[in-house]
């Protein structure tokens, strides 16, 4: 699904914020991306959602080398990636409905299908009554749910979420994590950047730990425990 080989990234002439990143994410896997502030999590996410090209190294997404890919093909590839941005990045002049519908419209889906799917998902995230509301008049939690609905509406093959539960209370946070789990079971590869230790412990998925621009992969700490619970 995703393969990074000796990937480095620097902004302008500054120092490398990511150094020699090497990892492979299998299709249908679920990972937490964690690390201290300033460790390069957002930069790594940016490379994964094709917001930038690496300054060195090789990035392979969906079996294709993105360094040599044409613009049109890159756009098609991006449609297979859902992103929940840390700052939501909603379009404030569009209603919640139109924000969520955006990926489907970009993909050229028919309006009937868009309406049915968006209405259903907004109901599911508890915003059915707010579908015509503009983002700026919503609470932080509501905006985050719109951002998450927008990221998952087109059933992406890869879902990247940057601190998706940051503005949510525990109950809604866990509910959304369950949504991500469901998507993962349907075959979506998921990477969630988070500091939330509780959620990482509860959902025992492998961790990509970034520290000072370098990456190491850790197995979930309670993985064996969860397996035992699963057996008995």
């Amino acid at each position: 699904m995703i393969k990074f080989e000796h990937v480095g990234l620097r902004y302008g002439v500054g120092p490398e914020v990511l150094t020699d990143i090497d990892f492979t994410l299998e299709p249908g896997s679920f990972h937490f991306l964690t690390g201290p502030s300033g460790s390069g999590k957002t930069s790594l996410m940016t490379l994964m959602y094709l917001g930038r090209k690496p300054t060195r190294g090789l990035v392979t997404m969906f079996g294709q080398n993105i360094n040599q890919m044409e613009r049109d093909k890159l756009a098609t590839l991006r449609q297979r990636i859902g992103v929940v941005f840390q700052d939501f990045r909603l379009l404030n002049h569009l209603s919640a409905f139109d924000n969520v519908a955006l990926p489907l419209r970009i993909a050229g889906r028919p309006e009937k299908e868009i309406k049915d799917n968006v209405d259903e998902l907004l109901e599911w995230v508890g915003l059915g009554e707010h579908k015509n509301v503009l983002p700026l008049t919503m609470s932080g939690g509501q905006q985050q749910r719109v951002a998450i609905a927008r990221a998952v509406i087109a059933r992406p093959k890869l879902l990247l979420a940057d601190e998706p539960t940051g503005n949510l209370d525990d109950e809604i946070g866990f509910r959304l994590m369950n949504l991500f789990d469901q998507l993962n079971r349907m075959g979506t590869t998921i990477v969630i950047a988070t500091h939330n230790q509780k959620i990482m412990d509860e959902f025992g998925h492998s961790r990509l730990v970034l520290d000072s621009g370098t990456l190491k992969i850790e197995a979930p700490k309670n993985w064996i425990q969860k397996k035992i619970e699963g057996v008995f």
Partner: protein
Amino acid sequence: MNPFKPKKDRRLGVAEGKRQYDLPLNKSIGTGFLVVLIALMTFLAIMALGTSFALGSMTQRWSSGLENKATIEVPAEKNDSDLRTKNEVNALVERVEQKLSDQPYIKSVTALDQGDIQALIEPWLGQGEILDNIPLPGLLSVELQISNESSLAKLTKTLAEIDETIRLDTHESWLGDLLRLTGALQFAAGFVLLIIGFTTVAAVAGAIRTRMAVHNEEVELLHLMGAGDGYITRQLQRHALMIGLKGSLVGLIAGLIVLGLIALIAGDTGAALLPDFHIQLGHIIGMIIVPTLICIIASMAARFTVLRVLAQMP
């Protein structure tokens, strides 16, 4: 429709009606200014085109009116000191008319009577006895079968045989000057149209660049969500097209009203040299093409500008 139900756009924080663009282009600052600018450009283009059409009509009228034609003048003076009497002038005019009527290279010859000649000089000397008392030349209007050097040479020779003082005016000299002048004015009008075209391209391209800079985050978001260049370009291109359409229609209507007023006021000038200002159907069709061209220019300028900006994104 339920009159008691509040309108959607009256409720705070609720989206207004149907979405038009994914980018917030409707609320962009400067849209009104661009509409006004394009309206002014279209108005100027219509004026330039109207001028060009009027000059074209004038040139055509002069050229066609004087084609193969010449004027023969039987001077009022015999030589430097002696004047001809009216009867002498009339006798000479009659001789010229008779002689030329038989010539195969002459299509028609018409002698202007005293009244016609007096009418020609009346604007300068006024009416009254003075016109009866001053010596007037005799004038004949001649139409040649073909106006070429050979027939003009034959005509000159025939006139010299009758009387050496008779003068031939082929109009070529002053008509050539006038045609050069109208040609230069038409060229200037065309140049003005060209400048209007370039100005429109520059204005639209600048406005689109500004919009893309202002809405950079939104454009980048669409880009990251997988919107192809075509998807983003279409939105800004449509926006520019709508601005072009609104502006150019306003400019066209204003231009046609002003030209209509000019036609109404100036209409038939009655002066021999000035053009009669009439708007013909062909001219109106020509002017309707202007907004179409402005819209195409605005749309294409937007398209190429957006594509250039998008090319800088990964």
